[in-house]
């Protein structure tokens, strides 16, 4: 298995809180890797670490052989040209139309003429079902449409690595189905490495070749979708079945509930 993203002994803190405690995980090249875990476990942070937007406090993140935490600014920007990222909010540029949003990376990083760029943008928008919305401004799009337009922008340069941050959130069943198919098709047709951060257990497991389950700042299980489904680890079972009670705490650490209600310290 050829590794595209290699995370080694990574620790990362926000203030005094440890988000990651010495984690090690590998993302295979040309596969779809789903990173799953409870809210607040640091899944989006992991994508930012992979993209080099933040640096780990210790350990390393290597993407296609480049150590992102030690790379120069120029190396980082060059590496990011081969990456696409779908942000949770879409993050479309609000002063540009959908067409201009998708065209921007092509205008910045290629020598293509306007006709070629127009054709590529229309093809990317067609693949996400938004060719007819090319002229609209981001403020005129629904949340789901904005996410799909952002996906078209993320894949505009045909990147080697695409990171999806909650791609299915807020999508109607039809759009979700199309996105699931699109991610699968992109991955297999263009041999793209995909990292998918999602809470949507069934849809993620249905397309993931490899799954990493995070909890409490550690990787609790890493394997294929079937291995995850068959796991007897109570933390995995609780997450997959959505139980409130279990080893993974639902409540943020707090003092005793009864004592607090009664005003006792």
């Amino acid at each position, binding site marked *: 298995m050829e590794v595209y993203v290699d995370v080694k002994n990574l620790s990362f803190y926000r203030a005094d809180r440890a988000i990651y405690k010495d984690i090690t995980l590998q993302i295979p090249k040309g596969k779809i890797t789903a990173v799953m875990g409870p809210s607040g476990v640091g899944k989006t942070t992991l994508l930012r670490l992979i993209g080099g937007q933040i640096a780990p406090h210790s350990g390393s993140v290597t993407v296609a052989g480049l150590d992102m935490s030690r790379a120069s600014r120029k190396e980082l920007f060059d590496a990011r040209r081969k*990456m696409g990222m779908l942000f*949770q909010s879409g*993050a479309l540029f*609000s002063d540009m139309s959908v067409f201009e949003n998708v065209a921007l990376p092509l205008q*910045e990083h290629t020598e293509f003429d306007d006709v070629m760029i127009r054709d590529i943008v229309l093809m990317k928008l067609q693949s996400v079902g938004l060719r007819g919305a090319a002229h609209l401004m981001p403020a005129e799009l629904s949340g789901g449409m904005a996410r799909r337009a952002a996906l078209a922008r993320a894949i505009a340069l045909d990147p080697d690595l695409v990171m999806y941050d909650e791609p299915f959130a807020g999508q109607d069943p039809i759009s979700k189905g199309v996105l699931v198919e699109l991610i699968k098709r992109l991955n297999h047709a263009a041999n793209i490495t995909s990292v998918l951060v999602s809470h949507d257990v069934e849809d993620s497991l249905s397309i993931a070749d490899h799954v990493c389950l995070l909890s409490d700042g550690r990787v609790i299980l890493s394997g294929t979708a079937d291995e995850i489904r068959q796991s007897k680890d109570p933390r995995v079972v609780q997450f997959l079945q959505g139980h409130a009670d279990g080893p993974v705490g639902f409540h943020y650490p707090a003092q005793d509930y009864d004592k607090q209600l009664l005003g006792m310290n």
Partner: protein
Amino acid sequence: MKTLYSAIYRHIETVGQAGVFLFQAICRLPVRYDEALKLYFRQIYSVGVLSLIIIIVSGAFIGMVLALQGYSILTRYGSESAVGQLLSLTLLRELGPVVTGLLFAGRAGSALTAEIGLMKTTEQLSSYEMMGIDPLRRVVAPRFLAGVTCMPILAVIFSAVGIWAGMLVSVHWLGVYEGSFWSSMQQSVYFDTDVMNGVIKSLVFAVAVVWIAVYQGYICQPTSEGIGRATTRTVVLGSLAILGLDFLLTAAMFGDF
């Protein structure tokens, strides 16, 4: 004492970081010059053209008030013909650059901070970074350059409108002889010392205000409260910077040392 030292150290550190930020923003060359020009002119419109109304209206009222006040004082000494001189020197040397700077900080500076802050909050700046596009080059540089270009022009417009409005009040309302109004101005205003010093002042104010505005937007906490605080800081720090710099520049330009 230790707290005071650490506060001073933090402020010096912030100024240093802001300096590096500005240097990085303006030293990165555009990838495509046609696109860079488009972004620059878009900002000229939003920072400069959209500020014209407030500058023209304020200039007119300040010119009229100056004419009224000047006339009421000068007429006691029989020197009402010097109203033109008073108006032009006050506007060109002081009020033009300073009031334009204060209005610019409130109108355009706060808008720049809020816009960049909102881009940060909605992950648009992160999105540029992840696309391999430097947000300093794409977002900050055109706004900074447009602001620095627009403010001296706005200050000249402010002074011209103020002089014209003051002339209307003093000549057509208060009855000052028009010939002496213009001739007193012509005799006492010098292009090098009065007009150009005013332009230089407004250029320095522009650098200070726009630098503060873009930096505050870029480093703000990505929340609605954070944007509000950053916008307030831009107006307060920008205004104080203008007043402080005005004293230093006036002392250097007109002080007899």
